[in-house]
């Protein structure tokens, strides 16, 4: 059948071939009956393409036939009343009555997506033929959740794929597939229209995406070799379809609010806290705070800082297809004002895809995306907005912004966040182009050669302007301008030769061999200057003081060979093998190449005779796969041994200094990862239910871990080389269940459930010393990477209530000794558990206090079709992860002069007043604020992620059929969240540390889609 699709349908030679093969087809009969009625016919699919290998069966007998290369069959049945059943995998079975004329049997695909064409690396396959683990994300569901970034819209829609959105306008989400497999870079490879994407998903207009699939297990990703170990996301954009031109206009507008803002103290509450804190710390309280109740509410900084955001978006797309050429083009404009004042994102995308058939053998085409985006914001410091004192107004009487005024211990030293948001200008202009051009040539009979050239050019300019200002004690006497220009160019050249053959015994073989070469060059220059005589000319050459310049560049390249063979027998037994050999510039001599093989097999149990006719089990396939992939995502020059050029001076004259920084390690090489996968795909109960279950074990070996370099070597202990010595294991189970509950003409209801469980364990890091990560301030030891524990596990002290009396302090292990409550542990301070029972609380009393990796993630989507209305309701949740709420280090410490959260109203003030919130004391002598279980919270959440209601206007009622489709829709995203987490939002990032994270937004969208 594949071969047939290559040929031009209107080729007259085909007719003669038909006749010839018709006679040949008689040899395919596997039972003869000479006494009955001879029936001949042709079986075609919904596109009128002949179906090869369809089964034609006389019901109640073993008399049957198979359709040939032209979809034709001949069968002799017993009598005129016999029933003939025509069936094909993935299609609805049809029953026909025998006639004397040739019967045309058209089979319609059944409700499962088994016949869907999915893209695997460097090729395509039908969903029914897959042997590896691959998730196809349903684009119509994704499109019901309008967003500027398609990454955000796939959250919860594929088992094992975790997406963490960034609330900041224009930023890309973080995508993780099957857990965290390395301490290095965990980002999956994203391939768009055949080319690995160097920039971000915000370069792609969601509306232009035709399909998105995620390759998860090694047998699927091994074809990407050294870039496959974190999974692969394959995206294709729309192409023109045969038929008259189609114009689609999609418009939407949305408003957004933060899902949650924390409560902070008002002026009266703050003044009370300040007095207590200072007195407990042995200092004089602020004389201005002698009557807190007279201060009232004071300034609500967060209210001034957050605002209602909005988005508007319009996409115009045009598609048409003719005999030889088809075309898809679209233009998108997106504009967003964020939920924080003075933050904005604007984007334009132009897309142009064509395909042209020169003749039956030669085809060429292109995909082109050009986009421009602008991110503009002030210096939006969420932490400062929380910490600013409510007793300080935003403006002084002269209209100038306020700053801390008076003694620092009374007025703090937080920079006015509203001022900084408004006067600072940060801008990033991005210009991106991604284009691929391909040619496909059919050779001999079964060969196809394809060459693809790709280019990606990313240019981005950044600019920061800070005017001079004088806000009470916060003075910046000189205006400051910094600009930078970045450029990254990537080139790709892929060549593949594909062999496709269908054999007489209904087996088929597809083999591909190919090469891929990719190269990237990156360069930047930047400069800054201070002191402008006039602020009306804001160019670098107008600055007077302290000019700086900086600039550098880097390059990388990859060259690979790969091969794959897929063999299947009667749609029943499948086997696939791939191998790839990658060379990368990131490794030193002798280590540049790595080899990555994989193999997988599948057995369609439902084609076996004992299940073939079952109505309960419509399709059941067992898959097994194993493969080795690699990760080469380390710095570009890790193997090199080098000095940095640095500077010193003698008597004011600058001289060059050559400085070695990183201990040289020329032996660094690939991380390799092996993965075992077992899976079931099933369609059950008369097409009522589709189920996919996968179980996997993913072992990362040779993980690149920082080498332990003691300071005594003279080399940096922070910028250390990597050595291949670590091991991490991820194992898990993924489940996708779809039920077609009701399937009537005017009322449909189906449910999708996605569930994924992952267990992560670090097995070895080549050292008895755990690696520490998760640095906050001067302390680097919040989280650990330690054998026997999950990655990034939290490590700290254990809070054991609060000391209520002095005797409790005296009876407990020594914390901070002394008699003065202002400088030593006293009632109201936190008691930390003496884990080793040695009578002293010190660094030895720390232990594992939380795990940021979720146990499981899940989602439930219900879609309804009621008359002309479509409704979908999508819930999504994450369970079992801990979050270290690092913001509380700043909002609950009650030991420096900043505003605090309202949680501190329950602080300890005397015996029995609290057993969880300690006393307010300036300087925190007991270090209540140390990293302990105090700030570990349960990060599980359950969220109504998206609700979409669409009304499809009955377009046939319009005159002249002016519209081919007309939809009006409203959506709500992140409508409500059920969680115990007290921070802004529980989506904080894979390492589980919430530090100044931009809050996720609740969005209401109204839109129209019109097709002409």
């Amino acid at each position, binding site marked *: 059948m594949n071969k047939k699709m290559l040929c031009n349908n209107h080729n007259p030679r085909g007719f003669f071939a038909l006749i010839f093969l018709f006679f040949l087809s008689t040899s395919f009969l596997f039972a003869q009956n000479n006494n009955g009625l001879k029936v001949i016919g042709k079986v075609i699919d919904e596109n009128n393409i002949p179906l090869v290998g369809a089964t034609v069966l006389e019901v109640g007998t073993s008399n049957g036939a198979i359709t040939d290369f032209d979809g034709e069959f001949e069968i002799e049945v017993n009598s005129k009343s016999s029933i003939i059943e025509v069936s094909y995998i993935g299609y609805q079975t049809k029953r026909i009555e025998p006639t004397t004329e040739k019967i045309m049997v058209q089979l319609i695909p059944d409700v499962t997506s088994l016949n869907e064409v999915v893209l695997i690396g460097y090729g395509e396959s039908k969903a029914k033929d897959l042997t590896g683990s691959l998730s196809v994300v349903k684009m119509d569901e994704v499109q019901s959740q309008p967003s500027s970034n398609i990454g955000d819209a796939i959250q919860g829609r594929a088992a094992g794929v975790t997406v963490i959105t960034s609330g900041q306008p224009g930023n890309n989400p973080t995508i993780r597939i099957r857990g965290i497999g390395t301490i290095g870079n965990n980002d999956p490879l994203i391939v768009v229209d055949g080319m690995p994407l160097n920039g971000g998903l915000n370069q792609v207009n969601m509306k232009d995406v035709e399909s998105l699939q995620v390759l998860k297990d090694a047998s699927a990703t091994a074809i990407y070799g050294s870039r496959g170990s974190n999974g692969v996301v394959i995206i294709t954009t729309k192409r023109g379809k045969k038929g008259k031109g189609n114009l689609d206009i999609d418009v939407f507008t949305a408003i957004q609010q933060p899902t949650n803002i924390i409560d902070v103290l008002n002026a009266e509450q703050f003044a009370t806290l300040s007095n207590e804190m200072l007195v407990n710390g042995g200092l004089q309280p602020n004389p201005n705070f002698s009557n807190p109740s007279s201060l009232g509410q004071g300034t609500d900084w967060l209210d001034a800082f957050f605002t209602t955001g909005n988005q508007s978006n319009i996409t115009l797309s045009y598609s048409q297809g003719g005999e030889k050429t088809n075309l898809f083009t679209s233009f998108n404009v997106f504009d967003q004002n964020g939920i924080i004042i003075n933050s904005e994102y604007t984007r334009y995308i132009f897309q142009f895809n064509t395909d042209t058939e020169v003749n039956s053998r030669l085809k060429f085409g292109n995909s082109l995306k050009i986009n421009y985006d602008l991110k503009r914001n002030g210096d939006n410091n969420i932490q400062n907005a929380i910490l600013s004192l409510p007793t300080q107004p935003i403006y002084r009487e002269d209209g100038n912004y306020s700053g801390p005024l008076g003694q620092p211990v009374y007025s703090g030293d937080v920079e006015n966040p509203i001022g900084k948001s408004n006067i600072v200008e940060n801008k990033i202009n991005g210009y991106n182009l991604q284009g691929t051009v391909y040619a496909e040539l059919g050779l001999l009979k079964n060969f196809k050669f394809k060459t693809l050239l790709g280019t990606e050019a990313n240019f981005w300019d950044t600019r920061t302007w800070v005017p001079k200002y004088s806000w009470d004690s916060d003075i910046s*006497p000189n205006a400051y301008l910094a600009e930078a220009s970045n450029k990254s160019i990537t080139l790709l050249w892929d060549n593949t030769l594909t062999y496709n053959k269908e054999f007489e015994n209904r087996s088929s073989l597809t083999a591909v061999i190919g090469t891929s070469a990719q190269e990237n060059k990156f360069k930047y220059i930047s400069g800054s200057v201070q002191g402008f005589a006039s602020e009306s000319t804001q160019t670098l050459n107008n600055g007077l003081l302290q000019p700086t310049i900086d600039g550098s560049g880097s390059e990388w390249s990859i060259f690979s060979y790969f091969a794959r063979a897929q063999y299947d027998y009667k749609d029943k037994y499948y086997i696939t093998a791939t191998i790839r050999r990658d060379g990368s510039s990131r490794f030193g001599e002798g280590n540049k190449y790595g080899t990555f093989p994989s193999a997988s097999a599948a057995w369609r149990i439902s084609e076996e005779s004992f299940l073939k006719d079952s109505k309960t089990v419509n399709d059941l396939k067992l898959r097994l796969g194993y493969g080795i992939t690699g990760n080469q995502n380390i710095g570009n020059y890790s193997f090199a041994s080098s000095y940095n050029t640095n500077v010193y001076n003698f008597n004011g004259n600058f001289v060059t200094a050559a400085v070695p920084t990183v201990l040289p390690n020329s032996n660094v090489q690939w991380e390799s990862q092996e993965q075992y996968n077992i899976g079931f795909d099933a369609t059950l109960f008369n097409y009522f239910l589709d189920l996919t279950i996968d179980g996997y074990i993913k072992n990362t070996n040779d993980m690149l871990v920082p080498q332990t370099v003691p300071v005594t070597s003279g080399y940096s202990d922070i910028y250390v080389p990597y050595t291949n010595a670590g091991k991490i294991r991820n194992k898990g189970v993924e489940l996708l269940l779809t039920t077609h509950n009701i399937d009537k003409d005017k009322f449909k209801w189906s449910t999708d459930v996605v569930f994924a469980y992952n267990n992560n364990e670090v097995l070895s890091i080549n050292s008895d010393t755990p690696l520490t990560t998760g640095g906050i301030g001067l302390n680097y030891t919040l989280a650990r990477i330690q054998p026997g524990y999950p990655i990034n596990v939290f490590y700290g002290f254990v809070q054991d209530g609060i000391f209520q009396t002095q005797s409790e302090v005296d009876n407990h292990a020594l914390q901070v000794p002394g008699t003065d409550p202002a400088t030593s542990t006293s009632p109201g301070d936190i008691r930390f558990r003496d884990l080793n029972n040695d009578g002293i609380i010190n660094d030895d009393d720390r232990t594992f206090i939380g795990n940021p990796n979720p146990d499981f993630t899940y989602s439930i989507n219900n879609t309804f079709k009621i008359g002309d209305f479509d409704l979908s309701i999508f819930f999504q949740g994450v369970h079992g992860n801990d979050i270290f709420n690092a913001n509380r280090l700043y909002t609950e410490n009650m030991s420096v002069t900043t505003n605090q959260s309202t949680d501190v109203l329950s602080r300890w003030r005397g015996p029995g007043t609290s057993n969880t919130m300690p006393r307010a004391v300036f300087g925190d002598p007991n270090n209540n604020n140390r990293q302990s279980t105090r700030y570990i919270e349960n990060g599980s959440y359950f969220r109504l992620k998206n609700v979409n209601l669409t009304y499809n206007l009955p377009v046939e009622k319009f005159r002249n059929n002016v519209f081919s489709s007309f939809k009006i829709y409203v959506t709500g995203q992140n409508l409500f969240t059920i969680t115990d987490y007290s921070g802004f939002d529980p989506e904080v990032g894979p390492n589980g540390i919430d530090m100044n994270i931009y809050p996720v937004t609740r969005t209401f969208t109204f839109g129209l889609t019109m097709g002409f």
Partner: protein
Amino acid sequence: MKNTKYILIAFLSVLLWACSQDFLDKQPLDTINTENYPQTAEELVTVVNGAYQPLQWPKLYNLRMWTSDIMAGNSIVGAGGGTDGIETQDMSNFVTQPDNAGVLDLWRGPWPGILMSNIVLETAPSLDIDENIKNRSMGEAYFLRAHYYFILARYFGDVPIVTVPLSSDDDLFPQRDPVSQVYDLIISDLNQAIELLPPKSAYGPQDLGRASKGAALGILAKVYLTLGDYQQVVNLTTQIEALGYALNPDYYNNFNINNENGQESIFEIQYASDGGFDFWSNENQASWASPFMGPRGANFVGGGYGWNQPTQEFMNQYENGDLRKDISVLYDGCPTFDGNSYDSDYSYTGYNVRKFLVPLSVIPSYDNSPMNFPVLRYADVLLMKAEALNELGQTSTAEPYLNMIRNRAGLDNIQSGLSQTQFREAVLKERRIELAFEGQRWFDLIRVNNGQYALDFLHSIGKNNAAQKHLLFPVPQIEIDRNPNLTQNPGY
């Protein structure tokens, strides 16, 4: 078929193009490949320059070396209060833990300098270059290595001795060597440096600030003073006297950006303005002293974070008429600073340091102060000689040296006929005032009477939990975690 042939050619050419070594051979664009470097004199000098740089870092002289005055009781942290500078507060309250950030900085400062000195000493001998440059470079490397080890030995005691550059294949996990062996290395290195280095007078203006023979003699004298070998101190300081140094008649000219590397300066850490480097990075060439010690919220200097606020007890040490008071510190009623009157409200103690401040009108920005930081002044050498002569029982010979310092400060001669103990006390007090806030006081306290002098003094100013163990810092915990061969100092 014809097409097939073309396809195969295309295929092969792709393979050949990309297969070529060059395609996958990418070297970094912005760093120097160590395989062939250094080769020439200029290249060797850049490595020597690199060996100086760690001295400039906040881990050493830009912050941590002068905050030792806070630990020594001359001042308090001050700053923003609360937990601002908590690591230094902990040190000065003698509750230092092995995870103290300031201690970690002091540990991490010297080793890169030692590595770079080792690289110079390993590569220089075989180079075919001008003998003068070679000797000078090796002399500088010996001096710097000795200086870095001197810092480590005084703060931490036993430390590993590393005298060759290490690579990934070497043993990176050494044990601590006894401090007596460390001092042997320091003394041997400094003697080499004395041989190889030219005198300061031989340096032209573009090299002024490099280590000189006088600097090596002076540091060696300080080493012997620490070890208690007073005869050597006298010998060495006498040699320095012959080299042409002199006291600046005006004390202020030791701390004057227009008189850097002047006649009294034997070795100072070089800083410069208008480098344009990030203030918080390793390349920063600006001094932190002015922005950090400037009074907070007063707009006297660029920055002004209010660190290092002198205590009342320290202020009480000034004798009437001491000219150094108005130059060293700010107090209510002191002479105006850049036209501004000082208000004691600027500080928790009512006082701020003045010595290192550069006025706002001269350097408006916090990150641009060019003031060099003194490590060794001629005044220090004279006081060392006075102290050593006194310890050798020659108190009367020692008096003139002490008096030179006092007279320059506008004070009368010291009372004649003091006992050895009284004279020692007088010299130590003079050192405290003369070298105030220059990072010398702590080392003076711990070297006298095996550290008992420090404990007695600290107890006398109310730091009652200062104990014997506090005379050394703990080895940073993170380093012990990495290298189990390191042992911890007693008591931590």
